[in-house]
């Protein structure tokens, strides 16, 4: 099953490496990973999307917790949460297809950020499933470049992940 794990890390050089290392050394999957500093410059927040059986996810969280640079972590998929990912996608948009592409973009509530002679750059925000759905909808031959941020997530309501 797909899990989203949020981590607070010491903002130290090498902290990201330690997490990435752990996944490769123990053969765990990483679907996506995004990380940046928080309002507290000494702390980075990472969102990690991974998959596996319950046993594997249990090992992943235990092993991550064992890393000295990991301050706190939570599997936000265990309860209500919000998930967002951003995609920038460059597509071929010519002739009749140009209008059609605009329509698909509107249906997915995307925004066209750049209009080229034969291309559009579309910005799309949503959970990963929505972004996957957009890619599936557009004809493969029209997709020129795809840039995805990886998922970010946050627990709803009073559930907080703080130092």
């Amino acid at each position: 099953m797909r899990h989203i794990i949020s981590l607070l890390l010491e903002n130290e050089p090498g902290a990201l490496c330690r997490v990435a290392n752990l996944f490769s050394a123990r053969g765990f999957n990483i679907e996506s990973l995004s990380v940046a500093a928080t309002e507290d410059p000494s702390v980075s927040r990472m969102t990690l999307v991974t998959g596996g059986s319950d046993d594997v996810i249990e090992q992943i969280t235990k092993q991550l917790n064992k890393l000295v640079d990991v301050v706190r972590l939570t599997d936000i998929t265990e309860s209500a949460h919000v998930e967002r990912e951003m995609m920038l996608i460059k597509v071929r948009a010519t002739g009749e297809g140009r209008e059609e592409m605009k329509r698909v973009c509107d249906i997915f509530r995307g925004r066209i950020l750049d209009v080229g002679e034969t291309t559009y750059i579309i910005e799309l925000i949503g959970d990963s499933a929505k972004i996957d759905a957009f890619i599936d909808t557009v004809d493969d031959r029209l997709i020129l470049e795809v840039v995805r941020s990886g998922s970010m997530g946050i627990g709803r309501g009073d559930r907080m992940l703080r130092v």
Partner: protein
Amino acid sequence: MLQFLKDEGVEFLFGYPGGAVLHIYDAIYKQDDVKHILVRHEQGATHMADGYARATGKPGVVLVTSGPGATNAVTGIATAHMDSIPLVVITGQVPTHAIGMDAFQEVDCVGITRPCVKHNYLVKDVHDLAITLKKAFHVATSGRPGPVVIDIPKDVTHPDIKIPYEYPQEVRMRSYSPVQKGHTGQMKKALELILSAERPMIYTGGGVVLDDASEELRTFARSLGYPTTNTLMGLGAFPGTDSQFVGMLGMHGTYEANMAMHHCDVLIGIGARFDDRVVGDVKKFCPHAKIVHIDIDPSSISKTVKVDVPIVGPVGSVLREMNAMINATNRRPDAQALEAWWNRIREWQSIDCLRYEQSDTCIKPQFVLQKLYEITEGDAFITSDVGQHQMWAAQFYPFDKPRRWINSGGLGTMGFGLPAAMGVQFAYPDAKVACVTGEGSIVMCIQELSTAKQYGLPVKVVNLNNRYLGMVRQWQEFMYESRESHSYLDSLPDFAALAESFGHVGMTIESPGDVESALEEAFAMEDRLVFMDFITDPTENVFPMMMQGKGHHEMLLSEMCRDRELA
């Protein structure tokens, strides 16, 4: 740095100089508090510090230079990491402005060691040095111990930098707080299960040794009267000569220990990590048992084998609390069931699975170890390398005290034994210390014979020389139709002469009749290193054996025991 090491109570610094650590070596020259031990290879330094740490429980401290100094130390760091041994390894680095420039003797030490340390640091500012050292010692020695590397660029230790120093008494790390105590509710649940057992088994590992919890384990096991087995790393935590001890378990464990594992209904794992050499085929592991697991590392729990009642905490404190609970309750295990269980175990014991055929003409390795046990009255520190000799030492030298059996259990590092023995001897100059090794392993760190001479270490080297990488040859015999691919060691040196050339005493022993007198003579030389080269039977195999993919109840016994089993 030297002032810090002194304040931290560091006795020995095992090291080797080089460009990036010259400022530190200059500081070493100007003081007498921390004794620097000059090794001959950085791997030797890490194993020596490791042996010192395993024997004393104190952290071993290493100092090496950048580049090859650091990479040579990696094997020793990984060895300590696998066995959870507290080491602090200080590596020199090229100056901060040269980092990343492919400078002379530059490697990304923090990157190279990251997967095989508990934690590591790069100190770029001298103001961070004292606190980082403090953190390193704290992390290395607390929780589940392990090695910590501190990489220090040369400019950070420049003597022109003068800053006020104060020993950091305390260290607070918000991201690191090992568990101090087990969960009482879980302990009650565990005890309920433990007291209801009809066929119980206590299985303990290196964690009991590391937490100095042997006393607590003895009280626990004796108050229950349950059979107890130790892993390779846990030997000595429970007395090897105790009537409740059923021997080591696992691939080359005893028949009775493994059979009892297979048939038990409650398994109590303490400070052990259900390693593959212990478990065998996971699908066949303890099929009838409910499992209690006490360990300080949450990630050890249910990693390979699913457990029923986990208790996360230091084994010593958990056992103390559980012992108090046992004292406070009137409930006792079912005596009748326990007696029946012991009767079954005694039946398995009667196979006498470690028996071997004695010879008048050829030295049997097991015989050397039995004699070693007799002559040292079972009270020596024994280090070993890796292979058949290691298994025989574990089988034939019962340890009654913890921290006496010192071997590379997890990583299986050949070359570990000699420097580790030297580390032990530094800690206990008057103790009997023997390194049990083979002609394959010993040459991997043999240069340390020179260090041993320099510091006058009277280690006794017991070389079981069968001219083969014995364990490799044994596997080839069993699994590759005896195709002995590169397991025969041609062109071996004359080990006695080699030892003599290093300034030690060398002996070659070829006849079983000379084994006892050679050992006696060697141990009588209390101030000399004696290298005993025992020419042993090249065809001898380690039995019993749990082959890969097999369960505890499917052990392969030696031929003579097989006959007995049928009879």
